[in-house]
């Protein structure tokens, strides 16, 4: 058990970060906090992808001026490409969410989720 935790430490951290993010979205009342929660989720998933790509003792997948032992000993490059895409998407989503939050504040005068419930039923 202890061994599993230590060996899979990054994955466990990812799961815990996801939990923190979900807690923020589920139980915080401020909209900005909810946006922060979504961003924590983003970070957790990005970390998960990068951690999947790591190979023990390997080097970055760049041939420019790499140390000689890096040849044929590189970390998996695909998750890094995926994570780049994911980061851009994260920026896009948070920008749009903040724009909506600002708009909501203009019309409702509050960022309290309890009061932003004109649409219901």
């Amino acid at each position, binding site marked *: 058990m202890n061994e599993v935790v230590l060996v899979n430490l990054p994955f466990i951290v990812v799961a815990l970060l*996801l939990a923190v993010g979900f807690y923020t*979205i589920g139980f915080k009342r401020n*909209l900005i906090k*909810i946006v922060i929660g*979504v961003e924590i*989720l*983003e970070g957790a*998933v990005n970390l*998960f*992808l990068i951690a*999947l790509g790591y190979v023990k003792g390997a080097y970055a997948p760049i041939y420019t001026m790499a140390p000689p032992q890096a040849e044929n000993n590189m970390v*998996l490059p*695909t*998750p890094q490409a*995926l994570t780049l*895409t*994911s980061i851009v*998407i994260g920026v*896009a*989503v948070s920008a*749009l*969410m903040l724009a*909506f*939050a600002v*708009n*909501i504040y*203009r*019309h*409702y005068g509050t960022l309290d989720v309890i009061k*932003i419930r*004109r*649409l219901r*039923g």
Partner: protein
Amino acid sequence: MIEHLPALMIAVPLFGAFTTPLFKKKPRAAALWALSITAVTLCLGILLVKEVTTKGMMIYVFGASSPGLVLPSGYHVPVRIIFEVDAMGAFMALSAVLMSFIGAMYSYSHVKFETGLEKYYALLLLLEVGILGMVLTGDLFNLFVFLEIAGISGSALVGFRNYRGEASEAGLKYLIVSAVASLMVLFSIGLLYGEYGNLNMAYLSTQIGFNTVDIIALGLLFTSFAMKCGAVPTHYWVPDAYSEVPAGINPTLLVATYASLYALFRVSFSLFGKVTLTMSSVGWIMSVIGVLTMFIGVTMALVQKDVKRLMSYHAISQTGYMLLGVGVGLTVINDPAKMAAFGRDAMAGGIFHIINHIIYKSLLLMTAGALFYVTGTRNLNEMGGLARKMPYTTIAFIVGAAAISGIPPFNGFASKFLIYETSYQLNPLLAIFAMVTSILTLASFVKVFASAFLGPPVEKYENVGEVPKPMVAAMLILAALCILFGLFPNIVLNKLVYPAVDALLNLSGYQTWGGVL
């Protein structure tokens, strides 16, 4: 050039979307440009459907030296992004391009008086791109990217009327929901990548087994796509988003929802085909969620007094029919006798219901948009006696309402008929729920018709007239499609729906990229 069709399906609307913001001060030109781009895409979509239904699955490998080169020489895994267009994907793509065209036509008049129209049309085209990418792709991460495109552009469009606080609220809700759902999709993609080191759905489906990680990935994907398609306990965003979005976007947003439904079917039938072949609990979950969706959606619709919100709850309830139909098929997928007896017909009913529902619900939401256009309100209590003022809208509404309630000979009847007959074979209780839902649907549309179109006229709306011609044309095209699909259901079923069902059921064909290997 015909082999580049899947790539062109994405490239053409994308080109349109990137050029539309250049028409900054000329909203008319932007509208016409978007309309022509959607028309071109519609032609391409029809070509694609023709190609796929006659010649079988189309493969397009991005960046290879020829479109069919799936595997690099000497390797037995695909490394590039592959588009895998089978009849099911082409079916969804056809509905997407058709509805975008209708929506662009309708928007030409409907949002005439608002600003920021070049962004509006760009986002409309981007929403179309997102749907097309989702339904055509054969790569899991690509699916995620296009899911995000569809989610972000959809939510931006929901918040289009930024002078209304409710629009921003609905947009934010939709955005948070879609962001969380897509992040969980990405998490499960990561789980699958970590296990099998690949992202191609066809390759992954040959590898997937029964270990815990795979099952958790299946659960996460299932739940996320169920939330994005508005299945019941996670349906709350649907009425908010649908009621606040401009009516010209409604058809495309509806297709975006069903693109998630398509992804749900794709995950259940193709990606996890080996798992669901032996685990009938997935099919049962889908059927039960379908019944719940149907019933709760329709009972919530009955008490609404906002006309677009009422119709959005009907959209939820009709999603239940599709889930029920396909879920019945998924439940008996490992039993060839039952499959031949009723499973295939159930799936055909569910999938036929997708396009039927897209057509008539778009029609209904457009009539609601027309009511909003002339009265400036969506509250049913304040309307009345509009039938004489808006004859074409009234006709369109009657056709749509009859179709959604399953009254013959409109198109809703044909698919509902299949679903009742087949779900009765699995469990009579399911069919009874489906029928009760249909009756309640009719009841609630009687309510809308009585309070908006009948009754004594309201003084406020003495001077209103029929809506502008593009809106009428869009509505009448859809009404004609309703009647056509209802009168000749067999042609549509044989040409479009049964190939789609067979494509979903043909697991080995999907796994080998249509026999390339």
